[in-house]
């Protein structure tokens, strides 16, 4: 984060934003901002990875001990990276659990299980039960009330051209909580970029490239954004309090883009631009996944961002047909509620395909040399889903897989079993791994304190 964005004026704006968007009584957990220091050598990075509708536990769970374990069918594609995995069993999502100190949130959980847990997964918060912005059947709810952990960590390490990068692989239509997992602040979801062409353009044009035309475009963009910022600043005092928070968020987004446009030349060669094709089409999913993974790895390897997420598919009950794996007229969500042998075998194929995507991302990151290793050693990928068991929406034993490394700060090559521990503990541990040592609880649903035991 650049210095001017951490100015007191912006902190005030942020508080106003929270107050305006999420109701007066609800404020984000107070996270003290440490001064970003120059990390020795390569920076540590974080990538959150998501796929919908859980896993089949029987074909997912490794067997063996902490350091001597065997991967099951689903995770088999990761076998060659076994010493760079940290598999966690026994964590539970608890979007229904609410902190005693927050009576406003006690009661019927908002949204369906897929919807509320998508917002809950990385933020440890629930959906706003006091908003009627969205409805599912008879219940009304609003956006999630938390900040996702990647965004909190980006406060500290998001010092690159992109403070954070949200990537999607068919992340779904309808800008609503079931399809959004990353929150910049309570009530402020960030949309993933689902088009490889558009992602490439964001990453590698305008701010980069040496041609006179590209330089002209960069200058034009800066001059225009300057004027737009001035307009926004003149507008702010004239609008209502709630709206001034929107003006501030818009200004903040512009500042981020301006920083990017001013950043120095590329650290590595620009990859070939993908062609424009229908990135939303069902059967294009493998191609989109391949391109998005490569672009994401390039963004990390080229130093464009330190914090990213990749969202596979969507949670408005996935209608994806995995035609490239097997023939079936039932889409993923429909299959996920069926437990006969045929469905279980097909579901395992789906989840195995997702594990392959993680392996592909790891392979790409490993291709960027850094120090004595590669970018993979300095990038911690955290992979999970919104439910654990898709048949009944259960969220105990959520399938957390950590992959890559945290620059040596986290011992990989382990399989840890916990006894029904809230996943907020893991969110706290992640904060600690990235230098936010003061964080002891994370998210509105957190009823405990401290990091995961025997983890770091």
């Amino acid at each position, binding site marked *: 984060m650049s210095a001017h964005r951490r100015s007191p004026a912006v902190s005030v704006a942020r508080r106003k*934003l929270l107050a*305006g968007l999420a*109701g007066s009584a609800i404020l984000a957990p107070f996270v003290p901002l440490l001064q970003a220091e120059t990390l020795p050598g390569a920076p540590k990075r974080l990538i959150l990875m998501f796929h919908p509708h859980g896993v089949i536990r029987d074909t997912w769970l490794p067997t063996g001990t902490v350091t001597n374990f065997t991967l099951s069918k689903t995770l088999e594609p990761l076998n060659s990276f076994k010493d760079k995995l940290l598999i966690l069993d026994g964590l539970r999502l608890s979007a229904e659990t609410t902190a005693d100190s927050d009576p406003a949130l006690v009661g019927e959980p908002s949204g*369906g*299980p897929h919807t509320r847990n998508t917002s809950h997964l990385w933020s440890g918060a629930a959906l706003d039960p006091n*908003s*009627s*912005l*969205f*409805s*599912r*059947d*008879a*219940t009304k709810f*609003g956006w999630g009330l938390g900040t996702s952990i990647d965004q909190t960590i980006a406060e500290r390490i998001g010092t690159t051209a992109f*403070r954070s990068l949200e990537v999607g692989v068919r992340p779904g239509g*309808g*800008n*609503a909580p079931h399809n959004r997992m990353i929150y*910049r602040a309570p009530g*402020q*979801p*960030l*949309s993933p*970029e689902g*088009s490889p062409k*558009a992602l490439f*353009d*964001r990453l590698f044009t305008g701010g980069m490239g040496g041609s006179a035309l590209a330089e002209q475009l960069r200058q*034009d963009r800066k*001059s*225009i*954004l300057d*004027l737009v910022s001035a*307009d*926004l600043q*003149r*507008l702010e005092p*004239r*609008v*209502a*309090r*709630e*709206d001034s928070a*929107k003006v501030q*968020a*818009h200004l903040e*987004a512009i500042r*981020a*883009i301006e920083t990017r446009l001013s950043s120095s030349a590329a650290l590595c060669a620009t990859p070939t631009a993908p062609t424009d094709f229908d990135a*939303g089409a069902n059967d294009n999913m493998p191609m989109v996944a391949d391109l998005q993974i490569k672009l994401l790895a390039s963004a990390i390897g080229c130093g464009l961002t330190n914090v990213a997420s990749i969202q596979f598919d969507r949670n408005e009950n996935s*209608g994806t*047909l995995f035609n490239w794996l097997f023939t079936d*007229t039932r*889409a993923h969500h429909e299959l996920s*509620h*069926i437990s006969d042998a045929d469905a279980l075998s097909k579901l395992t194929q789906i989840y195995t395909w997702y594990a392959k995507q993680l392996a592909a991302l790891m392979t790409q990151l490993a291709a960027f040399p850094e120090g004595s290793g590669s970018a993979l050693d300095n990038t911690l990928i955290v992979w999970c889903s919104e439910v654990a068991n898709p*048949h*009944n*929406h259960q969220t105990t034993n959520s399938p957390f897989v950590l992959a890559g490394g945290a620059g040596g700060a986290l011992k990989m090559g382990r399989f840890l079993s916990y006894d029904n521990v809230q996943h907020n503990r893991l969110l706290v541990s992640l904060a600690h791994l990235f230098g936010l040592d003061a964080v002891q609880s994370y998210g509105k649903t957190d009823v405990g304190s401290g990091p995961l035991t025997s983890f770091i």
Partner: protein
Amino acid sequence: MRRLNALQYANTVKDVLGVSLALSSVLAEDEKVGSFNSNLLSPVGELHVDRYMSAAELVAADAVGKLKTLLPCDPAATGEAACAQTFLTQTGARLFRRPMEDQELTAYLGLYTSARTAGGSFSDGISLLVRVLLQSPAFLYQVETAPAGAPTLLGGNEVATRLASFLWSSAPDAALQNAAMGGQLTTVDGLLTQARRLLGDPHGASTLASFHSQWLKIDRLPALQKDPALTPTFNAALGQAMLSETEHFADWVIRSGDGSLKSLFTQSNSFVEGALFDVYGLPKPAKVDPLIPVALNPSERSGLLTQASFLTAHSHFGNTSPVLRGVVVLDSILCKAPPPPPPNVMTIPPAPIPGETTRERFDRHRSDPTCASCHSLMDPIGYGFAHYDALGRYITDEGGKPIDASGEIKGTQDIDGRFNGAIELSQRLSGSHQVQDCMVSQWFSFALGRNLDKTRDACSLQGVKAAFAASDYNLRELLFAIVKSDAFRYRAPLEGGAP
């Protein structure tokens, strides 16, 4: 402070700059309020602003490609700087939906001048002006500067903006802006004169299409995946034909027909094209006049709910679902959404057993008492659609077994009871007070881009309902009654943000 939705952005750019580009894939996705796209609450992030930048660049490149038609003046005659200023003043007023302020004019002209000084062409300078106008908050946000809290009568340009965005999904045209500047929109009569003009204009088609496709939840039809085994083959073209049929039909009823709510549910004739003729079991004529409806069999079809769009959008991949169809009738038409399924139940219907009808299959899941309480509301409405397959084709038997399309409506104010088939259901709905009230709420929240507030909007809602009843449930009059209401003419505080 609402941000333009993608349709409003695209229509405005088309109307003001003459640029028709498929921008919905360039702009970030819209937020939904209830059934309708409305960027009401969540603020923009970096991705949105990036997308606005790209969209503005695309539009500007296209616009300066036809500079002669874009400019209101001849730069050779007036001088380039003077023409640029005229262009900025006039185009800015249309895009900002109010005259540009001096500070804006000076700053934007400065952008033009420095580009020229640095050696840029006239066209480069105009391109910069288009780009900055399209990224300015005055364009992207519908700014209403009256203080929140106390209701305040909107200014002329503000109410003109609401009117054009409601009835055209676009910006005010010159005539509407003149009426605003002349103070004619502060009276109900002046506002109504303009509302009648706007609804009668061809631009009104966009709003009518957008309302009906979102209200009936059929807007994603062209993107749906269906079982390739179905006949005719479902593809994007057929999905689009289905969607267009309903949009065209509703427009025809409201603007060319008697405008009555009853007709929406009971007119059998409709607008058929391409493979849709196969769906309706009709021979494809050599020539189709797109303005004249095709006669469909009135014993098979009766208005919106029996059209292929509704029946296909609310079916599963390869077979029909009384649950899906029943839920949309309850939710969209009766404004009576059933409660969500209890936690930890299987929400997938029972797997089909060969030889079983759809009704027999769904009866099995209603035998579970946990499910029965709600499904006894949804399914018996959905059973009324038993004569229509997953693409909306009319069928008379299912695997050799006769169709039982008897159903029952429960829990309504005025139309409870048994019925037989979707024709009777549609007739029943067409005269229901609950449906009439629901229609008022749906159009009202579409017009305002927000959910109605039970307390604050109570008087307005009452007035609109009375006017709708007095017009014998004429939808044109419903739209005008909404325009006349206090909720439309006054600035109300933002939802969830009581000061």
